[in-house]
């Protein structure tokens, strides 16, 4: 069963087509990738999925719901979480406070509960804290919970972002270039983590990544786009040998050299 289905997605900015008639799906429980040269429109696809961009046309079905044109926070509540290509942490807040933002949509204490601090509110706060500590443990940085997030190393700030996304208790996790800026060791740990998120937590993963080694290692299905259009789809081997894909990447490289 497909957890996510994208049908004939169209997106344009000021008459310029960024996504053109794009369709693809992500199977429940799979690890899928969306790849393509720089500027192909990958991040724009994520922004459409998560409600930050309103597509001009097309449909997005997530877990049986049409989510196209819904507000980002509603989509997160439906069970789709994301990380950003450029770190978007709450910089002056502690690591734990950052992760607790993810639990916001799974909890409900309002202003009256905040003032009264009654039993239910205290229980909810305690549960939130405990679950978020577990998320930090899962990504491997439980010792940093009280640190101000911007004081962490880049690699650890990435982990805070993953923990924060996990704290929303998602069904589908969208990772936008999670390996960017990581060193070799950190990349290996990321590969293991991606697999653990799927195997242990049962969360479906869709990732955008330029590191082909990583993509080929973890993904079961790869969708390749160029200029907002799908040019290939399949497993690692099929995609690697597809002449259109080779051309898209090589063509870009030649342009860059020139």
């Amino acid at each position, binding site marked *: 069963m497909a957890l996510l289905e994208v049908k004939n997605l169209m997106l344009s900015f000021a008459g310029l087509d960024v996504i053109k008639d794009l369709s693809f799906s992500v199977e429940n429980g799979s690890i899928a990738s969306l790849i393509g040269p720089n500027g192909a429109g990958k991040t724009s696809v994520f922004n459409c999925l*998560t409600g*930050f961009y309103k597509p001009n046309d097309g449909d997005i079905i997530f877990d049986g719901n049409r989510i196209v044109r819904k*507000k*980002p*926070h509603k989509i*997160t*509540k439906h069970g789709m*979480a*994301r990380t*950003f290509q450029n770190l*978007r*942490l*709450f*910089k*002056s*807040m502690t690591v734990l*406070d950052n992760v*607790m*933002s*993810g639990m*916001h*949509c*799974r*909890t409900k*204490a*309002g*202003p009256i*509960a*905040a*003032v009264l*601090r009654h039993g239910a*509110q205290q229980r*909810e*706060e305690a549960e*939130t804290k405990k679950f978020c500590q577990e998320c930090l443990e899962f990504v491997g940085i439980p010792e940093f919970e009280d640190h*101000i997030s911007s004081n962490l190393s880049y690699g650890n700030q990435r982990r805070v972002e993953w923990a*924060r996304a996990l704290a*929303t208790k998602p069904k589908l996790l969208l990772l936008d270039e999670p390996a960017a800026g990581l060193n070799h060791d950190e990349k290996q740990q990321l590969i293991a983590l991606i697999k653990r998120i799927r195997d242990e937590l049962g969360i479906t993963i869709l990732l955008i990544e330029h590191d082909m080694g990583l993509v080929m290692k973890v993904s079961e299905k790869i969708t390749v786009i160029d200029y907002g259009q799908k040019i290939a789809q399949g497993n690692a081997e099929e995609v690697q040998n597809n002449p259109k894909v080779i051309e898209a990447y090589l063509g870009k490289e030649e342009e860059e050299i020139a």
Partner: protein
Amino acid sequence: MADISNSTSTNSAQAVKAGGLMAWLEPQQNRILVLAALAGIALALPLILNNYAMEVMSSVWFYVVLCLGLNIVVGYAGLLDLGYAAFFAVGAYTTGILTSHFGINFWLTIPVAIFFSICAGVIIGGPTLRLRSDYLAIVTLGFGEIVRIIARNLEITGGASGLIGIEKPSIMGFELNEIQHFYYVFLLLAILACFISYRLQHSRLGRAWQYVREDEDAAEAMGINRVGIKLYAYVIGAIFGGVAGCFFAAKMTAISPETFMFQQSVLILLGVVLGGMGKIPGVIIGAFALVLFPEVFRELGSMRILVFAVVMLIIMLYRPEGIWPAKK
């Protein structure tokens, strides 16, 4: 004995200077100690102050409530509101109209004022909180003026001359009619405002305000409804202003539209920004500065406004985060 205690106190005073007052305030018991001492002083003040000083101090507590209310909007949620006096007016006029025209008991007017404040907050906040902050400032400015002009032109609000003869409230047959009484009422309100602010700040909602303030898109991506969260801040701020307005009307027994001019909104905003947005002790200091400065420099006459402005500028230049130091 006297020597020892003396030397330790100077030592600790030096330690405070060296290590920073903030570090000393970090442990909970030290903070409670300071709060208890301050509360003691505040409670004892009526024993030593004359009536004029009592008026000034009541006004300080009153502005503490207003500034803390606006702080929820500006400091916590990061929204610029230039029409906060409107909510203060809603509360004051609700109490004024209900007690003077309909003879309703003062205490019963408070829930009504809260209801109207919530309505006003939702009506103005609902459609405008989607706007960018600078547009919001203009809309709130307009809203503040509209409320004042309505009050100026309706018959029920007494037109330009306002309402007089608002009944003084009483508690179990004991009428609140002296400045000492109102001093304690406003002190109590200020303490309540601090307590509520503190609890809100350290809650799920308080965190959400901070997320939205730091990065709206990231907050939204984490499942936080930014418009809803801002509306909460706006409405809670409105309630603070409304309730303060009720007691203001009761103390003055007369209100006029001129009390709720744009300058009033700016003054309250000044208190919030001066002390340090989002920080309760900072906002309290801001409110003190707001009320005490013009009183202390009374001899300067109209020059004091200029001096005030210059001092403000200097503080904002050298301490853009406000008087109260930022955490860490």
